[in-house]
């Protein structure tokens, strides 16, 4: 389009002329993007860890000592398998159990084998969806002959809860900060418009289209968004590495390397930033576009 170069220059120039307000806008929008980004990265990683753990998310279901092997295999086993959310259910006899104990704790228990074996029969059960852990455990407990349940996936369960929390808190934060960013950007653009209301009134009196009047301000908003997007994607890369090495210092985990996500994160930040910038600018502009010369100047 003709005159686009002029409009673009005008938009970029006002970011600079308005630098205090621009800096504030960029600061808030970049923080919003940063928090969103970190919450997303955290969530991706937790999900990744949970997925890995899910592969051995077994729980052990111990039966009453009085239950014999035949009842266990033929009656209780199929009954557990019929429940929802069960991916596998393998019989684990008390003989296997005692052998394992012996291996782990030494020959102390040697004489407890055979009929002297005090252990109950058990099943190794795995679930499809860990987030339904509690309901599934409850329904297993309802099965007749089941005594108690131990699990080795408490960590996975905690992580899943954490993930849900991170997602929820993250969403609220993003919504709140998104609104604040919109507010600040639209104010920044409004200040530019106010300081240039005289020019706007002249533009309108010589026949500039609304599109033409609007464009430099939208460009100003978009440039603010672009800078915020670039800034936050650089910061998030460093922050992520720092966070991962801090966590690794405490618990050994296998993180998703940043390079796997760098492109998507950067593109996402920039696009999201520019969209917020444009919307923020448009919010302010509407007011002026429907006014005429004298009204704009307040004469």
């Amino acid at each position, binding site marked *: 389009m*003709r005159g686009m170069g002029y409009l673009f220059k005008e938009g970029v120039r006002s970011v600079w002329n308005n630098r205090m307000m621009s800096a504030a806008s960029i600061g808030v929008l970049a923080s919003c993007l940063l928090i969103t980004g970190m919450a997303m990265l955290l969530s991706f990683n937790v999900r990744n860890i949970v997925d890995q753990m899910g592969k051995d998310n077994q729980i052990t279901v111990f039966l009453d000592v009085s239950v014999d092997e035949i009842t266990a295999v033929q009656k209780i086993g199929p009954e557990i398998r019929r429940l929802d959310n069960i991916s596998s259910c393998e019989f684990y006899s008390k003989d296997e159990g005692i052998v394992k104990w012996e291996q782990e704790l030494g020959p102390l228990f040697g004489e407890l084998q055979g009929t002297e074996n005090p252990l109950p029969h058990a099943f190794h059960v795995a679930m499809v969806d860990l987030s339904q852990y509690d309901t599934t455990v409850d329904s297993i407990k309802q099965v007749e002959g089941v005594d108690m349940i131990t699990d080795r996936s408490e960590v996975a369960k905690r992580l899943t809860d954490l993930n849900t929390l991170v997602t929820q808190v993250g969403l609220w934060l993003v919504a709140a900060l998104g609104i604040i960013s919109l507010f600040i950007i639209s104010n920044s653009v409004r200040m530019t418009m106010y300081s240039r209301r005289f020019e706007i009134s*002249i533009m309108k009196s*010589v*026949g500039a*289209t609304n599109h033409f009047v609007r464009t430099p301000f939208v460009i100003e908003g978009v440039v603010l968004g672009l800078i915020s997007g670039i800034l936050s994607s650089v910061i998030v890369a460093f922050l992520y590495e720092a966070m991962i090495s801090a966590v690794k210092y405490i618990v050994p985990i296998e993180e998703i390397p940043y390079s796997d996500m760098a492109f998507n994160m950067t593109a996402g930040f920039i696009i999201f930033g520019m969209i917020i910038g444009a919307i923020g600018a448009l919010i302010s502009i509407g007011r002026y576009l429907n006014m005429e010369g*004298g009204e704009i100047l307040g004469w």
Partner: protein
Amino acid sequence: MIQFKNVSKIYPNGTHALNDVSINIGKGEFVFMVGSSGAGKSTFLKLIMKEEEPTSGTIIINDTDITNMKRRRVPYLRRTMGIVFQDFRLIDKMTVFDNVAFAMRVIGARPAAVKKRVNYILGLVGLRDKAQNRPAELSGGEQQRVSLARALVNNPSLIIADEPTGNIDPEMSFEIIELLNEINKQGTTIIVVTHEHELVHRFKNRVIEIQGGKIAADSGVPEEKAEVPIEISEEELAKIPDEIAEEIPDVSADEINREALLAIGDEEADE
């Protein structure tokens, strides 16, 4: 060119600024509009440029009824008009050149065309050597000429000037009206609001007097004026269109004509 049919304007606060005004102003006329303060002169001009809407009645400009004109057409209506404000309305932080160029840039003119045309127009109003000055460094008369140059730069078919001589000495006022007279001779319709009887007497133009929102007197077009040829000379028009039309192949005929008119100053500016 301009037709008011039973136009009334009541401002939201209840002020009756215009009362059942009907008048015709033909193409190529030069009209002085007089009347005491608060008579409704500025309101009349604002209705023409559609800065205000009439409460009732019809306004026709260039055979187009602008009363029901769509909002998005208004900018194109204004491009056919040049407006000179009493208080100049120049942008302080821009140079004289940029103040005038601004009016071309905001309607999307190409940089090369802007440069040529603005230099030509600044020459016309005698300000070529002040092009890089700021408005604050100019006298009142010079500022008024910048404001006039801005109104002229898009080659409007109508010029509206609200008290263009209000802030300057009589000699300067005379020169400004003289300049407008020259422009008028090339076919541009001109409406000038003024309080200065001296000017009105010196230039024998049509005088419309507004009082209390009504037309109180209308001298009609003076006889010697009515005969003045008002079209741009054939040869001037003939020497442009071809090259211009080639340069911008996909614009409407209307726009080509505009470009052609804008280019009239080009050769002279190059000298």
